[in-house]
Each structure stands twice: as C-alpha cells, then as structure tokens.
C-alpha cells in the first residue's frame, strides 16, 4: 500500500536515450521551432498576447523579476524556506507516527478507519480551515505544508515496517537478535527505500501546499506573486514565475535522487562498492 512516485524507470530511460549527444540537436531544433511558431503566432495576432505571452516577453520578464526589479528573490526565499521547514517537520512527524503505528498492532487496528478516511480526503482542501483557525501568516502556512507532507511518509513508513521479510525475521530471531538489532539491521534498511519514496512525494506535495496557502493568503511567496501577476494580466511575468517553479521542481527531483543515492546506497549500482571501499579506507587508517 506504499505510495510511489509516478516517475518510472521507463520514462527516465527514455529521457536519457533521447538526450544523447547526437539527438540533442534535434530536440533543441524542435523546441526552438515550437517557440518560434508561438512567437510568430503572437506577432501575427493569432494568439492574444494578453493571455498567451510571447516567449521573448517571458525571457524579458525573467530578466525583470530576477535582476532589474529583483522582486522575486524575497518571495522565493519565503516559499522555499517554509517548504523546507514544513517538509522536515511534517515528514518527521509522519515517519515517527508511521513507525509507532507499524510496531504497535493495537494502535494500527484502531487507527485504520481514520487513515482510510484521511486518505480519501483531499488534504489540501483543509487549507482555508487552517488559515481561519491559525490566522494569516507563517503559522497557518507551515501547518498546511506539514499536513500535506505528513501522509506519504506516514503510509510508506508504516508499510515498510509491516512488510518485513518473514524469513529474514525468523533468521534474526533464531540467531537471538535483540529487538534493537532487528530494528537497526533488518527493519530500517528494508524500510528506508520505501520511506525515501514517500519523502520525495512529500517534498513535491509541500511545494503544492505552499502554493495553495499563498493563493489563499495572497501576502508573500511565489504563489501570491503568480496570482498578482495574473490578476494584472501580466502573463509574461506569471509564466516566468511558473518556469521558476519548474526549475525548483527539477532541483527537488534531482536533489531527492542524490539524497536517495546517499542514504539508500545499497539499492543502486556501484553504491555498495563505493560504500565498502570507503569503509575499508576508514578501517585501514588507524
């Protein structure tokens, strides 16, 4: 029942194949042609520039909001700092509760109906409620981010803890492993890849949660900036902000991949060798 990221190996594989040296020129060509068509369509009056901004205007807006006016930094800082704090707090809560519930069958049995109900509710929908309860500002934003972050790590930790390989557990027991040993050497290593998948989803969800909170509060943050620009029909700047989010999303994706390689190193090709050679070095030194 663990929640998985939608980005599959097939897609990554295709992406890698399609971005190989010889093909990249073709890709850039197609992209430039599309962009040029868009620009032309806008200049010829087929696309209303009020709603569908020209690529050249979007590039100019990037320059404007990042360097000339430099107003985006403040909002970016506000959003990103909240996302990271909320993600850390929310997923810590999720992992802790997930482990607690996973190890305790009684709690698990009693909590199950509530989890099912919570799973079916769109959790972002609680945003207005939380804002009304906690007031405008940082508190309610953090609460929303924590709420949307909580669930994936919770469920994944829970399922990671429950789905321990029975045979291995038996082996551990027959060798008289203590409970802490079972936890440290069996349950945690088995659960970590699943937990990391949950963490990755949670970080993406955190960004969405922050955006929704900012749409409602409209005070600061990249979400409120997008809203204000769109209201003023300054679509080029709105798109510059959205593409900024694309870059952030991409960085999140790559960053989580790196973190996964670092934490769950045994899952990846070469990771185990790298780790064992590192251990060897540290063991030889003294």
């Amino acid at each position, binding site marked *: 029942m663990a929640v998985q990221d939608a980005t599959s190996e097939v897609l990554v594989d295709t992406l890698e*194949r*399609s971005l190989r040296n010889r093909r990249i020129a073709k890709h850039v060509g197609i992209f430039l042609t599309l962009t040029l068509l868009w620009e032309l369509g806008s200049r010829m009056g087929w696309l209303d520039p009020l709603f569908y901004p020209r690529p050249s205007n979007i590039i100019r807006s990037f320059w404007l909001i990042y360097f000339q006016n430099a107003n985006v930094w403040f909002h970016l800082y506000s959003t990103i700092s909240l996302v990271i704090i909320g993600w850390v707090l929310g997923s810590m809560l999720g992992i802790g509760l997930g482990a607690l519930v996973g190890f305790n069958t009684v709690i698990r049995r009693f909590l199950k109906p509530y989890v099912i109900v919570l799973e079916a509710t769109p959790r972002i929908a609680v945003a*207005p409620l939380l804002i009304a309860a906690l007031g405008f500002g940082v508190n309610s934003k953090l609460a929303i981010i924590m709420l949307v972050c909580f669930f994936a790590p919770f469920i994944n930790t829970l399922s990671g803890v429950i789905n321990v390989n029975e045979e291995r557990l038996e082996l551990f027991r027959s060798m008289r492993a203590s409970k802490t040993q079972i936890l440290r050497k069996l349950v945690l290593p088995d659960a970590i890849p699943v937990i990391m998948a949950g963490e990755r989803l949670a970080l993406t969800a955190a960004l969405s949660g922050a955006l929704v909170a900012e749409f409602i509060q409209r005070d600061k943050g990249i979400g409120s900036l997008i809203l204000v620009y769109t209201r003023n029909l300054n679509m080029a700047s709105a798109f510059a902000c959205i593409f900024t989010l694309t870059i952030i999303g991409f960085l999140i994706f790559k960053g989580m991949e790196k973190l996964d390689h670092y934490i769950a190193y045994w899952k990846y090709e070469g990771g185990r060798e790298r780790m064992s050679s590192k251990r060897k070095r540290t063991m030889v030194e003294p």
Partner: protein
Amino acid sequence: MSVSDQPIPLSGRILDIGVRFLPHFVLFAVIIGAWEISVATGLITSIIIPRPSAIWSAIVELYITEGTIYRHFFITLTEAVVGFAIGAGVAVSLAIASSLWDPFRRYVTPYAVVLNVTPGIALTPVIIAWFGYGMGSKIALAAIISFFPIFVNTLTGLVQVDEDREELFNSLGASNVQVFRKLRAPAALPLMFAGFKIGLTTALIGAVVAEFAQATDGVGVLMSRFSFQLNMAASLATLLSMTVIGLILFYSMEFLDDRIVFWRRESRRAAASRARARTWAAQAKK
C-alpha cells in the same frame, strides 16, 4: 488464510461484525465525548475547533434540512470526473502512441517530465484567466494535474512486458496488432488502473484548489466561504462531503479495476471463468 465454504448463519455474522466493530465504536465515542467536554469546559476555543455536536447540527442543516450542499457537491464531482476523463483520455492515447512509435516517445518524454516537475497547482491563476470563472477552468486544471500519473503508468505497463512472453509471441508469428491486443494491453491494465486511482484523487484536488482561487459554485467555494465566516462547524461539515466525493471516486475506480482486471484476484478470476463456461454450455446446447 483459509476461509471455510460453510456459510455462517446471518445472526452469527451480525454478531461477528458487532464484536469486531464494537471496540472501534467505543473508541470513537470516547474521542468524541472527550472532545465535546473539552470544548464545553473551555479547554479548546470553540471558534477554532467546534464541538462535535455543533458539527453534527451543521451536517444535519447542510445535508438534510436545507440541503444546500448537494448542488455544490455535484458540481465539484462533475468537474473532477470530467477533468479526469479528459486527462485520462489524452494520457492514455499519448501513452499508446508513444509505446508504438519510439521516436514519438523520445520527443514527447522531455515535455511530459517538464510538466511533471512543475507543480500543476501553480498554473491555477493562469488557467482561470484562460478558461474563465466557470466550470471550464476547474475541469482544465483537474485534467492537467491528473494527466501525468496516468501517462506514466500506462506507458510503463505497455513498455515493460515480460521478455519471454514477447519472444513467445514473436516466435509464433504474432502480428503487431496481436502483440498489442493480447500481450501489451492486458499487461498494462493493472498499472493503468493504479494510475487512474492516483489521477482521480489529483483531479479532485485540482477541482477544489481551482474553486478556492476563484469560483461561484462548488464544495471548495463553500469551504472557503464558511471558513472565512469562522463558521468552523459548517466548514468541517463541508469537508466531510469532500471525503465522500473522494471515497466515491476511489471505490468506483476500485470496482472497475476489479471487474476489468479480473485476472488479478483469484475469486474474480474464478467467477469470470465460471461465467464463460456457462455461456459456452449455453452455446453447446443450441
């Protein structure tokens, strides 16, 4: 786990269910009671967390005596379902096209990935500017954010087929159409339905968030309206309807999954083969 074929008498079954659920009901009652008392004694401010009895009376008012919720309920449900249908239609057809034609897959993948790493919710203000304040913008947002999980899952299912089976098909001289119909499509169905389940949930989120941003009807509007009137009881009662929509969507998809991908579950497979045997017997009789 083995289940005996002997039917348990009805009275016994009711008793069994009663015994099984009694602790849950007791716990639920205790929680509600503690909540009610702590609000009544002023331990929790009733503005922020309303009494359960107040929530209950709000539920009665919204759902039974006034029935205001149903219009909004069906509007949101329609937005989510129509958006999902559009998103799923586009996603499945693109996935099929890119599974059949490798260059297409290579050129489509980068854009799909870019769409995925951008938080779809960030597009809300722009989508509202494009499609207006009515249902169109909600449907569009639901379609956009439900697209990716369905696309990825269907593509993965279509591409990652068992190589031995593919070899068998090839060595028996199966045509491309046969390979697709008898091998790839059935292999993709379970994953496709997993994608549909994720997509439905995200479609609901898209519809609700777009309603938060700007709308006149829908559960999201009702929710934010009640929240900003600090009518928390009514707001929570509205949240309940979102949970109900979520449950309806999820379980109807689960039902379809069970019917269409019948071979995954033993009992369903047996039922399907029995039905087939009956039709063949009827044909033989003729």
